[in-house]
Every structure is written in C-alpha cells, then in structure tokens.
C-alpha cells in the first residue's frame, strides 16, 4: 500500500518523465507488436498455401473406374493422407479451361480431350514435409494404372525453407526489438532514478532500508511497463485496423500473444527499474 502510494506519487511528482517513459516503451513494444502482427499473418498465409500441398497422380486412360475407386480408398487410409479426390478427364479439361483463361478458346477448339484423369491427394498437416510427400508419391506410382505422380518437389521445398527462414528471422528480429525495448525501458527508468538520486541519498541518510527505497521504483517500473504495453497494444490495433481497411485482410493476434506482450512489457519495466535502483543504491553508499 505504502509502496503503491509512493509509486503513484513518484509518477505524480514527475508526470512528464513518466509520460515520456510510457511513450518510449510504447513505441518500442509497438515495433514488437507490428512484427508479431506481420509474423502471425505470414504464418496464417503460409499454412493456407501449405494446405494446398498435394500429390497429383495422373491415371492411364485405360484404368477402370472401379479399380480407381478401390485405390482411392486405399490411398486415403495412408497415415499421411487426408483425402484423395478423383478428377475425371472431363473435369480436368473443365478446370484447365477455367484456370487458364488465355487458352480457353484453344481448348474449346480441341477435338480430343488431351488431359488425363487424376487423383488429387491432400496430405495431413503433420505430413507435409518434403520427405513425406515423396514417400506418398512413390507409393502411389506403384499402382499399375498410375502413369505418373507429380507433386511440385521444388514448391514443397520452397515452402519449407521459407517457413524456416521466416521462423529464424522472427526469432532474430523479435529478440533485437525486445533488446531495443529493454534498452529504452532501462533508459527511462534509469532517468527516473537519476532524477531522484538526491531523494534516494536523503532516504538512506534518514535510515530507510534498501527494500523500502526500492519497492516504489519496482511498482513504478511495472506500471510504466504495463502502460507502455497497453499503448503498444492500442497502436498495433490501430495499425491492424488501418491496414485491414485499406490494404489487405489480416488476422489479429492470438489473445495469448497480446497477454504475453503485456506481461513482457510489465516485467521488463520492473526488472529494468530494479536493476537501475540497485545500482544507484550501491553507488550512493560506501558500505
């Protein structure tokens, strides 16, 4: 209670400094927020693209529909496979003419349908690695009525390296931004401690214990951190809304992330404050 009151009065005593600290922390956590938003949306987009990883087995024109149906069931029971869809020659032509509008005229002129029937095999989320895709493709090719299995090897590899790189970049950039934020919080709190160095020295001479002196600063650091975190959250949300309305549709951050961000800002503020006060206390007293 006393510490809280003191912390509040500390803030009241130097409101400009506190507002500035909150803004500094807010801005730096905001950059983390922006980054998290970007990362999260890359993630969403990636898992969307990844969902399209599939193996296509082109079938001989002479394969009987019954055999194909049996094979389709077998394939669907593979542990790696989510679903297998049969695409007849007619459907293939239709889809091709729809997807490739430039050639729709060409196709309608054709007398024979040159496109083969196929099985489009979608994989389960956990089995979309290059290795699993190749395994499925190999097994499927062993059916005698399968002409060829394609799976865009390069495409699969690319998605995976992209996710790995994105993950690495996320960690590196996230850490460096967090470092920047910690730095700024440290600056802010250190300033507020320095601004009260005289006060601290006087408290020591009056017989206040280290803990007693430290506590209000810790609480002040926590509150400043949380304030900065909330500001960052607000800024991130405004940015999210602005981009959502003008540019592209975005996913908002998971609640867990925002909660973690707030907790991070608060704890960072408290730790930075604690460190700054401890150093100041040791500097001021000779024992």
């Amino acid at each position, binding site marked *: 209670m006393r510490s809280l009151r003191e912390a509040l009065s500390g803030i009241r005593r130097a409101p400009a400094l506190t507002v500035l600290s909150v803004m500094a922390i807010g801005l730096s956590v905001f950059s983390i927020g922006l980054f998290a938003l970007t990362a999260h949306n890359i993630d969403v987009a990636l898992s969307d693209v990844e969902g399209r990883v599939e193996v296509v087995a082109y079938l001989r024109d002479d394969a009987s529909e019954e055999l194909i149906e049996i094979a389709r069931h077998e394939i669907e029971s593979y542990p790696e496979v989510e679903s297998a869809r049969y695409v007849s020659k007619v459907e293939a032509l239709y889809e091709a003419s729809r997807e490739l509008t430039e050639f729709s005229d060409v196709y309608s002129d054709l007398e024979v349908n040159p496109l083969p029937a196929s099985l489009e095999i979608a994989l389960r989320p956990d089995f979309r690695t290059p290795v699993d895709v190749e395994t499925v493709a190999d097994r499927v090719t062993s059916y005698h009525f399968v002409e060829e299995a394609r799976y865009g090897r390069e495409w699969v590899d690319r998605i995976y390296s992209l996710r790995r790189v994105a993950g690495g970049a996320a960690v590196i950039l996230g850490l460096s931004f967090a470092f920047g934020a910690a730095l700024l919080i440290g600056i802010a709190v250190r300033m507020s401690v320095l601004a009260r160095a*005289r*006060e601290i020295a006087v408290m020591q*001479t*009056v*017989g206040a214990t280290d803990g*007693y002196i430290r506590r209000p600063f810790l609480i002040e650091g926590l509150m400043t951190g949380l304030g900065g975190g909330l500001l960052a959250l607000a800024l991130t949300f405004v940015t999210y809304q602005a981009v959502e309305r003008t540019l592209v549709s975005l996913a908002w951050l998971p609640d867990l992330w925002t909660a973690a961000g707030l907790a991070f800002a608060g704890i960072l503020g408290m730790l930075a404050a604690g460190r700054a006060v401890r150093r100041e206390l040791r500097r001021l007293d*000779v*024992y």
Partner: protein
Amino acid sequence: MVQFRSVTKSFGGSSPAVLDVSFHLRKGEFAFLTGASGAGKTTILKLVHMLHRPSSGEVRVSRYSSSRIKRRDLPDLRRRVGYIFQDFRLLENLTAEENIAFALQVTGTAKAKIAPRVRKLLNQVGLAARAQAFPRELSGGEQQRVAVARALANEPLVLLADEPTGNLDERASSGVFELFRRINASGTSVLMATHDAELLRRHRNVRVIELEEGRLVFDSAGDPVA
C-alpha cells in the same frame, strides 16, 4: 555511545581530512566540535553516521563498529543517529511537514502518531506557519530549522548537528540551542559542529573538542580514548 579510535580519513589528496583522532562521547553527553573552515568537522560527523568509511582506525557507534558493520545494518544505525546536515538535504519535492513526516514513515511509525509528532516538532523550531511550504519557498534559516526538526523526529540516541545555527539570527540560534539542551537532558548524546565563537564563550561548561587541519588539538574532557 560514540567512540573514535585513532581514526584517519584521507580522500586521496595531499593531507588527510581527519588524522589520528580519538575521543569518546558518552551516553547523554553534550560536546561542541570546533575548528577553522576545512578542519575536518563535517568529516567527523559523516564518519559517525557511517557515510564515510575510515581509512584507518575504528569508529564505534552504539553497538556498531565501522570495521564490522554490514550494509543491511546501516538503516538501523542511521535511525538512531539524527543528523542535521550543513547543507540541510531536504527533499525538494516535499513540503516542510512532509519532509519531517518522511523520516517517521521510513522507520515505520504508526500513521496516527505521525501528524501530531510533526506538528509538535514544527512548533519547537518555530515553523508552524510555514508547514506547507516547499524548501525553495523557505528562507535559508527556515530550511535549516526543518532539517533540525527532521533530525529530532525519531528521538535519536545521538544527535549530530553540523553548523545548525549558521543561517540563524541570535534569537533563533538560542531557540535551537535550548532545544538541543532539552533533548540532551532526556538522554540523547549531542555532537555539535560550530564555529560560533560567541556560543562557545556563552557555554563554558560544555565540553569542547577542537580540530586543526584534521588533528584533535584540544578536548576539554581530557582523556582521549576511554
């Protein structure tokens, strides 16, 4: 209560600020600490408050010794030793009464007891009318009297006063001095640094410790180490 044994304090300069000083201030004793400007009076008081560590020798205050005291014991020591600083050291952001109350809060005094105690102290130093003023709104002498009230707040075992009447006129000076005598009469030891020759002349019965360039050159109580 306060005991110096061959204490030397050097700040790294050519000559030490305090050189081989020994004396013993007993419980309930009153002593003037005198000497020219730069003789080492403030340094002696700060050694008692353990704001300086002696370069050699030992300072004992109550049950604490400068050579054995732990960092965590400092607050306890400083609550028992009231200190009126030569430069006052008031908190700029607190009013006169808050500055005094602060010293009581720090020691965990019950809230209900703080307000009446602060009022009594302000009256004793003649500042009741300026209770709400901030240090920058107080005259030099008024600030000094706030510092006096704060040092007395916790009824210290030892009172250290550094030139406590330097900014006071004759009447206010005697007022503060009489206050010290009353405090002293109730058992508190008082060590008062001063170069008010007039004061020394008027109180010839009070013990005088005199410094010259850091050395103890005269002690009216005689035996230096006891």
